[in-house]
């Protein structure tokens, strides 16, 4: 069953360019159906995982000569749901938005590959498999960033590629050291080997390399240089996927699996993560304040919000982890919404320069309304989802005696509200800017995707007890166990 999360998008990707020749609309339909299928598969597992069940699957039971092992716990399921959910809305949005780019077959093929790569990364129990799937998702995302073929897009993709190579070199080097010392890549075996006899100096070196590599992938400050170019340059649904999902899967998820499940969150790493988290939170927000390009502002805001997640994870307490995982889920919803809105605004007006926009709320009522919801969610205004996750992180910080960091988190939230309200005022309210008289609301599918995501932001806030109990808590339990009694999650090795 778990293999379907990888095989189905992969098979659809392989067939997509051929099927696209049969009927022009088929890539759109196949994209949406595939993502709805993986989402359904994820939703099907919620009840059992919430009850404490962990899934493990391997080919041994099928009597095949191949060896494929996959596992799913609460943390994996949360990420699988985020990937499928945001991918589904990105596919819906792409129906209209990607029309003028052409080559939808290739576009969806790359999109499905990116999803297959992320799902593989989340489900594997082997460190080297993680690296391979990290590359699958990355290779597809480089091409998707440059999909528009313009000079800026190709340049941003190249920069992204180069810095990603630096990241994966660090990760690969750390993996080689770990293998050299332990003779295994299995996450559970590694946790045992590390605990029982790995050289402390080498553990420090490996952790530094992992932190650098996954820090680059998740765009934490000071490893963030690629993100403000790559994310705005990509087509809007891809920006939503990159900021909403990819940096979390290939950066945060992979880092947490390594740091929590293998190394058990040593105090030095916790401190380093706290420093990186605070730096990301503050620098991302302050730089976002001065941006005139809507999507670039959102990209810096992603760096800032990743900071919140990292700070929550750095605390290491169940409440901190809960805040971090809930914010990870919430950020995926509101940041995707905001990137899709930025794309919708550019689609309708031809610009994403905030100084050239103004007063388009009456012309773009759906986009304006959903953008307001996204703004309130990201700024942590009650009752939207961002409020609860930020509140939990701040309470966890206070509880763990990080009063100063809690104050910084509150201040950053105010800065976030400031620059988002400034953007909202510049782009949507006030007098209609010259040349925008003929602007019309975006087509149906684009509007539908943003309405659904906006509804999720609101429902996520209103029904947060259900979400935290059924989606977040199983992940918190998995990660707390990983570091709690110095034991580790049974990933089936």
């Amino acid at each position, binding site marked *: 069953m778990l293999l379907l999360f*990888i095989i189905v998008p*992969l098979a659809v*990707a*392989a067939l997509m*360019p051929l099927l696209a020749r049969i009927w022009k609309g088929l890539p759109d339909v196949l994209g949406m159906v595939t993502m709805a299928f993986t989402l359904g598969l994820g939703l099907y597992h919620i009840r059992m995982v919430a009850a404490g069940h962990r899934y493990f699957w391997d*080919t041994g039971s099928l009597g095949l*000569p*191949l*060896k*494929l*092992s*996959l596992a799913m716990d609460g943390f994996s399921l949360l990420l699988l749901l985020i990937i499928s959910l945001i991918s589904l809305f990105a596919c819906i949005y792409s129906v209209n938005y990607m029309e*003028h*780019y*052409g*080559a939808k077959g*290739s*576009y969806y*093929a*790359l999109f499905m*590959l990116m999803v*297959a*790569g992320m799902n*593989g990364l989340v489900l*594997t129990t*082997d460190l*080297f*498999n993680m690296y*391979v*799937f990290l*590359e*699958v998702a990355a*290779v*597809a995302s*480089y*091409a998707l960033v*440059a*999909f528009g*073929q313009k000079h800026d897009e*190709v340049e941003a993709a190249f920069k992204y590629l180069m810095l990603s190579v630096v990241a994966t070199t660090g990760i690969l080097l750390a993996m080689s*050291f770990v*293998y*050299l*010392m*332990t*003779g295994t890549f299995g996450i559970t075996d590694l946790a045992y080997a590390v605990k029982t006899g790995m*050289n402390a*100096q*080498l553990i420090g*070196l490996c952790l530094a390399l992992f932190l650098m590599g996954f820090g680059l992938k998740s765009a934490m400050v000071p490893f963030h240089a690629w993100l403000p170019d790559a994310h705005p340059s990509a087509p809007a649904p891809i920006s939503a996927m990159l900021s909403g999902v990819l940096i979390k899967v290939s950066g945060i998820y992979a880092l947490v699996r390594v740091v929590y499940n293998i190394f058990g969150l040593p105090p030095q790493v916790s401190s380093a993560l706290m420093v990186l988290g605070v730096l990301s939170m503050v620098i991302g927000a302050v730089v976002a304040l001065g941006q005139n390009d809507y999507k670039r502002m959102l990209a810096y805001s992603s760096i800032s919000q990743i900071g919140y997640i990292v700070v929550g994870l750095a605390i290491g307490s169940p409440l901190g982890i809960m805040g971090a995982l809930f914010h990870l889920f919430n950020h995926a919803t509101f940041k995707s919404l905001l990137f899709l809105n930025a794309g919708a605004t550019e689609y309708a007006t031809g610009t994403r320069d905030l100084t050239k926009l103004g007063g388009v709320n009456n012309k773009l009522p759906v986009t304006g309304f959903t953008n307001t919801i996204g703004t309130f969610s990201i700024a942590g205004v009650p009752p939207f989802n961002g409020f609860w996750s930020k509140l939990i992180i701040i309470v966890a910080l206070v509880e763990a005696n990080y009063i100063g960091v809690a104050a910084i988190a509150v201040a950053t939230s105010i800065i976030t509200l400031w620059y988002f309200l400034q953007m909202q005022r510049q782009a949507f309210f006030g007098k209609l800017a010259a040349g925008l008289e003929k602007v019309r609301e975006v087509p149906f599918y684009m509007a539908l995707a943003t309405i659904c995501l906006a509804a999720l932001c609101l429902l996520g806030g209103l029904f947060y007890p259900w979400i935290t109990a059924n989606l977040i808590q199983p992940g918190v339990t998995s990660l707390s166990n990983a570091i709690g009694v110095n034991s580790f999650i049974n990933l089936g090795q």
Partner: protein
Amino acid sequence: MDLLNLILLLMLAGFALMAVFLKDLLKAAISLAFMSSLLAVLLYRLDSPFAAVFELSVVAGLITVLFVSVIALTKEEETAKEARWPAYVFPLALVVFGLIDIKVMQSLFATTPQGFGNPEASFGATLWGVRSLDILGQIAVIFGGVFGVLALLREKPLTAKQKEDAIIAKDGGKEKLW
């Protein structure tokens, strides 16, 4: 360390540097091929013949052919101005990295346990029987490369102005009137 291995390693680093710093793309691609061939020799000498064959056939062979073909198809349109600072900073960074590397490796080799893995297992059995998921990932990476090339080298969609010009060029603008 074996003296020959050390010489091969130094030559490899030299060709890698040439691949980065040579202005002529063709020469850079050929330097890269030399670097890869030396790596293949090193891998062979370090008891990894299969990795050596892959390195030689794919990186030194196939990829070099691709690079050279693409360079042959490219015309020079404009010369990009390159920043000069990497030429100064890079060697410095390399020396610092080398010093750290030597220090780390010395302590690493002093504590490295020997004899992991199963020397009896064949390459095929290990690849298919133990690393099957990696093969699936590799297939996906190859698909990613192919679809990426198809997507990025596709014909660019025409802008409204280009479409208009194309129509005028085709039928003298009659269609535009409609």
